[in-house]
């Protein structure tokens, strides 16, 4: 069912939110259609990068569940290497900290970092971006209509935040079963997987649920050993890498060959880089697991290609070192357990992803412009 996720009141709309908490819009940035459409336009605009080659949507592709499935770590202006995998924007309305290391707390200000980062959109300054926006004829009147004033850094952030808060995707088969009471919505494998997830395997200690909704994240930071392990990998000596050169054709390539044509991976210390607290080394924000089946590859650097790889990593107890979270321990899962866990994770994919893709690209919902602001679930009237 293609839900009119923005239209207030109808039953179809309500269903999109099945399993999700209420969206809290900031007092000073209530949503409106004008802000929404402006934010969508900004999101798609390649001119907002230093050389006009990248938009927000270049790394957060609507067609790919607002990630980029075709690379592990993001590529920025002039091909500069990012260290991390692009996180999905789906349900970012519910996050209390942003980025893999949680260095931002608000969608209203989050956009500044990628706009200016040398290895992302690489703009020389925010003033430069705003000056450009004021000069683009196709923006004539848009900021004025949405905010009653000309383009500014604050208004830009508010428009982008309103747009991102509209990318809401609940109502997965899991939600229909667990919160909706439809026993046929998922298989027994999913149910068994969920039992393991929320029980013996302990996944829900961090990927947490509430009684009436679930974001599958505690919005906190943990060291599961993955970041530490990747840092050890970086310092390994000569080794070989299995490289696919054509479908079904793989060669083992020496790391010295790879190093001859690569700048090499950069260190990533995770949450520590924000707090400088040694206890926070290699901690990363717990990601939501909603739509995780659509957002490969996985982990902060995209280093694991499949959910099965991720489950294997946890089954082995992560990567043991002094700072490893006590939650992470060998699980001794059977093959069936792993299949059930994977089935559960895949049951978290929402039905409206196609609808969101079309909406993000075209501004249309079921072929129409949205008529009502995305206020559903707000605690305050716009």
């Amino acid at each position: 069912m293609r839900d009119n996720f923005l239209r207030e009141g109808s039953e179809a709309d309500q269903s999109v939110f099945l399993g999700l908490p209420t969206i809290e819009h900031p007092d000073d940035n209530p949503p409106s259609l004008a802000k929404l459409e402006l934010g969508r336009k900004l999101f798609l605009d390649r001119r907002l990068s230093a050389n006009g080659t990248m938009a927000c949507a270049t790394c957060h592709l609507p067609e790919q569940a607002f990630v980029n499935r075709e690379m592990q770590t993001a590529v920025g202006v002039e091909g500069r290497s990012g260290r991390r995998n692009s996180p999905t924007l789906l349900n970012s309305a519910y996050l209390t900290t942003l980025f893999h290391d949680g260095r931002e707390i608000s969608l209203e200000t989050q956009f500044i970092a990628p706009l200016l980062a040398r290895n992302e959109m690489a703009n020389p300054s925010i003033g430069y971006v705003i000056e450009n926006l004021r000069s683009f004829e196709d923006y004539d009147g848009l900021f004025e209509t949405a905010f009653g004033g000309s383009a500014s850094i604050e208004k830009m952030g508010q428009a982008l935040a309103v747009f991102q808060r509209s990318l809401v995707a609940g109502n997965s088969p899991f939600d229909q079963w667990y919160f909706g009471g439809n026993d046929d919505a998922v298989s027994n494998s999913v149910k068994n997987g969920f039992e393991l997830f929320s029980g013996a395997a302990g996944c829900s200690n961090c990927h947490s649920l509430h009684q009436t909704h679930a974001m599958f994240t505690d919005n906190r930071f943990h060291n599961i050993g993955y970041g530490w392990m990747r840092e050890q990998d970086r310092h390994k000596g000569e080794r070989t890498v299995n490289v696919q050169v054509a479908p079904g054709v793989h060669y083992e390539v020496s790391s010295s060959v790879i190093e001859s044509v690569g700048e090499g991976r950069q260190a990533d210390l995770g949450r520590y880089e924000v707090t400088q607290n040694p206890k926070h080394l290699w901690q990363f924000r717990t990601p939501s697991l909603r739509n995780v089946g659509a957002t490969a590859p996985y982990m902060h650097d995209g280093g694991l290609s499949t959910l099965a790889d991720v489950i294997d990593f946890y089954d082995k107890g992560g990567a043991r070192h002094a700072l490893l979270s006590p939650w992470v321990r060998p699980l001794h899962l059977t093959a069936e357990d792993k299949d059930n866990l994977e089935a559960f994770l895949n049951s978290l994919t929402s039905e409206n992803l196609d609808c969101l893709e079309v909406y993000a690209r075209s501004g249309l919902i079921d072929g129409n412009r949205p008529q009502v602001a995305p206020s559903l679930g707000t605690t305050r009237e716009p």
Partner: protein
Amino acid sequence: MNRREFGLLSATWLAAGLPTGLRADETCQSPYMPKITGHEEFVYVWTLGVEGMGDGQDKLVTVDVRPNSPTKGTVINSVSVGGRNEAHHGGFSADRRYFWAGGLDTNRIFIFDVHSDPSQPRLHKTIETFVEDSGGVVGPHTFFALPGRMLITGLSNSDDHGGRTALVEYNDDGDYLATYWMPTADDMRGAVAVDGAVADGYGYDIRALIRKNIMLTSSFTGWSNYMMDFGQMLQDPEAMQRFGNTIVQWDLHTRQPRKVFNVPGAPLEIRFPWGSNANYAFSSTALTSQLWLIYEDDAGEWQAKAVADIGNPADIPLPVDISIAADDQTLWVNSFMDGKTRLFDVSDPHNPKQVYEKVIGPQVNMVSQSWDGQRVYFTSSLLANWDKKGEDNAQYLKAYSWDGNELVEDFEIDFNALNLGRAHIMRFGSAALYA
């Protein structure tokens, strides 16, 4: 004399080059174009700017190669275009008066006037609207001249920066005309997949055999990969799945795709021979290191098959540019990783045999040879983020003479030492073309 006799005469003349009075040139041009069959006078090198080096900008560098010139073997002109655009390939208009050069990153197309003064090309026009004109095509790559028009292959698209792309046509004034999307498994656009080929919609090179009304395109990869750090990409299994594995046969006149061939491992350059009865083309696959033959069989059907390995494919030598001799008997094949050029005897196109090899530098990409095959030029850069790092990042134009047995270096220009940048495609110029 009747029309048939006229036709025979014109075929003879086509083989000799045109217009009469001009003898000349590198052998990899559009067959519509006048050729330099004598001694090339200038080599134009489309050069990538390097951050922190000189003016940091992409530039068209002119090297004097006139045999008796006091400035032979030196840079005599350089036109900077502003910015780093991922300068890559370029091609002359069919009347050879303008040189179109593309930027794979910024999608700008620079049109240089090379006829007003062939020793001093100047920037005539810049097309800034390639993506908008074409409906979302990114990465203008090969510039293939048709009479009055330019057919440009894309490498990517603005939606996902992946490999799905199109051919884009402009007129000689630089006005947009049409976009022809590559066939995909979901939308074959009337083409038929053969040998289990899966139409990927990717693009790279384009060449045509007018006599057969046939056009071939090859397939590389999208912006995400060609802009990515090469070492990073090799270790990224997601990225390595995104390379083209097809060559597409088109109807040249209608620009409609006919067949999709399975050519796995990123087939790049395509070269048709010149002979009046030669109904085949060569291509090389970058990742699988094979020489492929696209040929018309006895039943009149076009086919594709691998005909030779280039070096040891398991070492990933990464074949890049190829250049076929005017007599169709030999083919130069460069490979980037080992910095080698290899000469294949292709007198039997179904059984190419390597007859010579030489290391040109720590890395090598493009090769261009004179019409008589006696002079061979090499440049170094593949892509800004794929070139080797540190000491091995040699950037050069090297000129050799070829006597049939040995490449003997004539001169070398160090593009790093001259603060020019990364040397990419070469094209020949001559004042004799505009007498």
